[in-house]
């Protein structure tokens, strides 16, 4: 027979006014297994807790029910009190007779009767409660950051500066990301590269940051604190150790007219190239699709030219393994491909703007390169078709954003700001030029943001039209932009030299595959899912995996950096102890009765089910079974419901406990 103690709280008048606490205690005293039942004015107060501790000792109680408020209020309080008296805290249950009884009923008889019923279910349950101990998971205090843009660099530096090793994985030949290619940044107009490149160098030289550029995550196994990442180092054909970054190979390479990825096709690069002069690491890579030596075994000039002998045409992909305890995903964004992409599959978005058809219709990142001092035109704005300086530029905002019919429903957040910036930079370079902007709304929330837009309009004289552009055509080397000014209520036609489309922000290519590898979620647009939009903005639903930057949602540089530091701090929190302590109220599987159908595996929201093979001492396979990874399980119990034999069970809410509760209602 159990020795259960029941403690009924008056909560001052809060419970006692509506519930006859004497009667409840008396009724509880008669319940099977109850050793003693008492009531007291404030169970949560020190004397109340002392009473519980004293009774646990004097009556040798093996379980306790506190009938008081919601467990969300005081379960931890009372469990601590029980633990202090030597009772396993999980052998204590609460019966909620305040929020769910005394506060919502007036009829004292019926409220008392209900309170007794509520305590009865708790008494029935607690008899079966298992004594549990916290789960400890070893923590590898080493992090991996995926994506070497500004967010990834920030996160990596923060974690490394805190004293932990970081593995930074970047799929391009250099870290730096999109920001490395930007001209100047809003709202301060400071040079993007000037602020970023020192951070890149710092990351590249940091003693605790291990850089994997031109590399991609192949797979991840394990769980929080114990991930094992396999990283594919793509074939570079350049020996990173031997190369000095002198650049002679680039000069001698005869195949110089290849569209530069870094310049978004606005400039050209050789077949062996560093994406940009400040690349980190300052090592070139050979484009194997173009290189004459690789394509048809010709040329080979760079190999001959390279003094240290760093060129290696026999190079192959390599797989590296890294053990880490936490992963930060910072894979960033790409631009919506105007006229091609159809995420909603309704129409080909914005084909009418002639992007890809007219050379002088470009997107915003291409424009960034055209006005960047480090760009293909050395900062002189020349339009792509004929190299002329445009005397008029039309900027179109919301191309793909906020458009359910042709594009994406969300706001890309940064376009209003960089479009204003573009008009300014343009006007600063071409003083006589005309900047026209077609917009839907101006969203300039942020420190100094609205002032910045106002400056573009009022000081630099950009012409803003609130309206959409219906069509762009080309006539005699001029682009004819037909739109509307809905404030004036008139159609607007602008003859212009260059059109810049502020395309929507999309998650980077391949992010869904990456999300699958990491067992994290994507929203319908491919942005990675945070665990809670407000309270857990950088955590994901897989313990130990964090997100930051534009891979989670469109955001600007300050926000990306702030989020990166937040993710880094979460990683550091998890690294603050050598073991991770987790709540023990999670699922377990009886491997003896498990039929290995793995319905639990299909259902588990946390991918916490593993397949195990049970073997005899001689190695013979006895059976297969499912097993719960204690580092991943969050205790939702969905596996229990789908387990046909109920070999799965959830601690804290075991089948025995739950059925005892239901039966106690009868």
């Amino acid at each position: 027979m159990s020795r259960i103690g029941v403690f009924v709280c008056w909560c001052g008048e809060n419970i006692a006014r509506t519930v006859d606490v004497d009667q409840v205690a008396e009724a509880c005293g008669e319940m099977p297994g109850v050793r003693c039942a008492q009531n007291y004015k404030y169970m949560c107060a020190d004397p109340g807790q002392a009473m519980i501790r004293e009774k646990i000792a004097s009556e040798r109680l093996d379980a306790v029910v506190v009938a008081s408020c919601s467990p969300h209020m005081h379960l931890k309080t009372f469990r601590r009190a029980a633990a202090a008296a030597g009772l396993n805290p999980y052998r204590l249950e609460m019966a909620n007779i305040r929020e769910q009884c005394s506060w919502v009923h007036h009829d004292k008889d019926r409220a008392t009767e209900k309170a007794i019923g509520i305590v009865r279910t708790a008494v029935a349950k607690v008899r079966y409660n298992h004594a549990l101990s916290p789960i400890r998971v070893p923590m590898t205090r080493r992090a991996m950051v995926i994506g070497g843009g500004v967010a990834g660099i920030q996160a990596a530096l923060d974690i490394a500066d805190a004293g932990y090793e970081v593995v930074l994985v970047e799929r391009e030949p250099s870290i730096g990301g999109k920001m490395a290619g930007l001209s100047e940044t809003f709202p301060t107009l400071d040079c993007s590269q000037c602020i970023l490149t020192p951070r890149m160098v710092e990351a590249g030289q940091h003693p605790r940051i291990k850089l994997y550029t031109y590399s991609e995550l192949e797979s991840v196994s394990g769980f929080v604190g114990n991930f094992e990442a396999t990283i594919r180092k793509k074939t570079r054909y350049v020996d990173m150790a031997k190369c000095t970054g002198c650049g002679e190979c680039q000069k001698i390479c005869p195949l110089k007219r290849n569209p530069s990825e870094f310049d978004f096709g606005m400039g050209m690069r050789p077949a062996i190239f560093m994406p940009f002069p400040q690349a980190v690491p300052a090592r070139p890579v050979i484009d194997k699709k173009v290189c004459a030596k690789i394509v048809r075994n010709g040329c080979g000039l760079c190999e001959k030219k390279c003094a240290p002998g760093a060129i290696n045409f026999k190079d192959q992909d390599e797989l590296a393994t890294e053990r880490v305890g936490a992963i930060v995903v910072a894979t960033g964004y790409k631009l919506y491909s105007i006229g091609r992409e159809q995420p909603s599959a309704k129409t080909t978005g914005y084909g009418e703007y002639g992007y890809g058809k007219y050379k002088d219709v470009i997107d915003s990142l291409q424009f960034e390169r055209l006005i960047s001092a480090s760009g293909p035109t050395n900062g002189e704005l020349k339009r792509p078709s004929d190299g002329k300086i445009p005397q008029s530029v039309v900027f179109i905002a919301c191309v793909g954003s906020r458009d359910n019919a042709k594009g994406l429903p969300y706001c890309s957040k940064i376009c209003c700001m960089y479009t204003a910036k573009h008009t300014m930079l343009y006007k600063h370079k071409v003083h006589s030029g005309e900047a026209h902007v077609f917009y839907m709304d101006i969203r300039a929330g942020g420190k100094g943001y609205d002032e910045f837009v106002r400056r573009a309009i009022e000081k630099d004289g950009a012409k803003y039209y609130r309206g959409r552009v219906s069509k762009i055509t080309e006539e005699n080397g001029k682009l004819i932009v037909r739109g509307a000014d809905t404030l004036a209520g008139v159609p607007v036609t602008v003859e212009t030299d260059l059109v810049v489309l502020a395309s929507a922000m999309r998650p980077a290519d391949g992010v869904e595959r990456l999300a699958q590898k990491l067992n994290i979620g994507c929203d319908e647009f491919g942005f990675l899912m945070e665990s809670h939009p407000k309270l857990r903005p950088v955590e994901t639903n897989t313990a130990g995996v964090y997100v930051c930057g534009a891979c989670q949602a469109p955001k600007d540089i300050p926000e990306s950096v702030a989020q990166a530091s937040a993710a880094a701090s979460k990683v550091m929190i998890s690294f603050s102890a050598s073991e991770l302590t987790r709540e023990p109220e999670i699922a377990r599987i009886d491997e003896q009765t498990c039929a290995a159908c793995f319905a639990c595996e299909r259902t588990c929201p946390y991918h916490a089910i593993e397949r195990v093979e049970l073997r005899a001492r001689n190695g013979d396979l006895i059976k297969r079974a499912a097993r719960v990874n204690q580092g991943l399980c969050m205790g939702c119990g969905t596996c229990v419901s789908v387990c046909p034999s109920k070999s799965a069970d959830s601690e804290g809410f075991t089948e025995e406990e739950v059925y005892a509760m239901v039966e106690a209602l009868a």
Partner: protein
Amino acid sequence: MSGSNGFEPKIVAFVCNWCTYLGADLAGTSRLEYPPNVRILRLPCTGRIDTNLVVKAVEGGADAVLVSGCHPGDCHYNAGNYHARRRWMLFRELLDVLGFDMRRIHFTWISAAEGRKFQHVISEITEQTRALGPWRAYEAKAEIDHRGGLVGQAVSPATGRAGPAPALQAPAPLAEQELRDLARRLLGAGDVKVVIGYGAAGPVFVTKAADVERLVWNEGCQANLTTYLKRKEVRALGKPAVVVKGCDERSLVVLEKESQIRREDVRVIGMACDGMGQEKCAACDTHEPRFADERVGKAGGQGGKPAARYAAVEAILAKTPEERLAFWSAEFDRCLKCYACRQVCPMCYCERCIADKNRPQAIDTSPHRKGNFAWHIARAMHLAGRCVGCDECTRACPAGIDLRLLNLTLARAAETQFGYRAGMDPAAEPPIGAYSLQDKEEFIR
């Protein structure tokens, strides 16, 4: 407060810890009064709320049941409520066919902020249930002869469905010879250790090439022999070849999906079949095996009429709930709990059946009405989205219980709601264990 007859309904609410339980707490902190008829049971997530629990609550005398959790997108555990939503959908279809009073089974999403919604929902359910009166329709409260005896009504209402289809044509003796030749070859070459096939008086396990004459192929080959793949006595014989019809073969697809067999460990001998004169044969669209390693014969019959596939379900749904419940009560009263339905089922491969688990006793082992309802509900739910419709349970039942109708009910739900037919497409995602954001939820308040 109380009804004119003084009846106070008992309402059992299964709620998730993170949304509805907190919603109820909020109703408390906001002092939003509602009738004290509800008993709230806190579980971590709606995903944890097993349908057996709801049945247990009804058995225990609940007059209405509420299941409530987080709104879609708000689940504390990402997706528990989506899994639950799917399960409830199937569960409701089943209870409806069984004739349960659906006005007493409620599903809601109530968030932690919706104290007022909680108050309204409980008040409404209490009022509604009070007006309905005690839930006596369910057998738990019916006056059954608890002391036993031959129970059951002699005559069950007709289900209004067509009789079994005649065999389209007698299976060809040629096929029988071909089958024996094939078995001889497989056994002779040592490709397989045993051929599981049909014999003159039941299944046979041919282990020697000389014994292949024991194999027959005739209009009596109704059994689904894939069920033997789960039996350890048969497994011990070594690699099997199993003789299947197009319909039986579907169970292999499910078994492989559920990691019970590895396809390469089983040689499948597919028999073209024009029907075995069973009810299922009328709507058959798998006369020809599709995945078999070896194929024997050629079916002469035309494809089945898929429209007729679920005619029996529609026929029973045309009756009133009271008639349905009376029908099933009579059916289940004949149940002996011999578990022939379970043992013969290729999908019932658990090492320890839930019905044999007694800590806790989710399903009463006794063959009384309560225990029989609980068992057949649990079995049907376990087969939801898995049953391939071989109808072996119905064939095996010595009490002639119309078990196929239960399975068809959920097969119909799986097909109409999720476009899924178990065992038809090896690439298709089974409906249980998956979910879609678009799953219907018009039954959830």
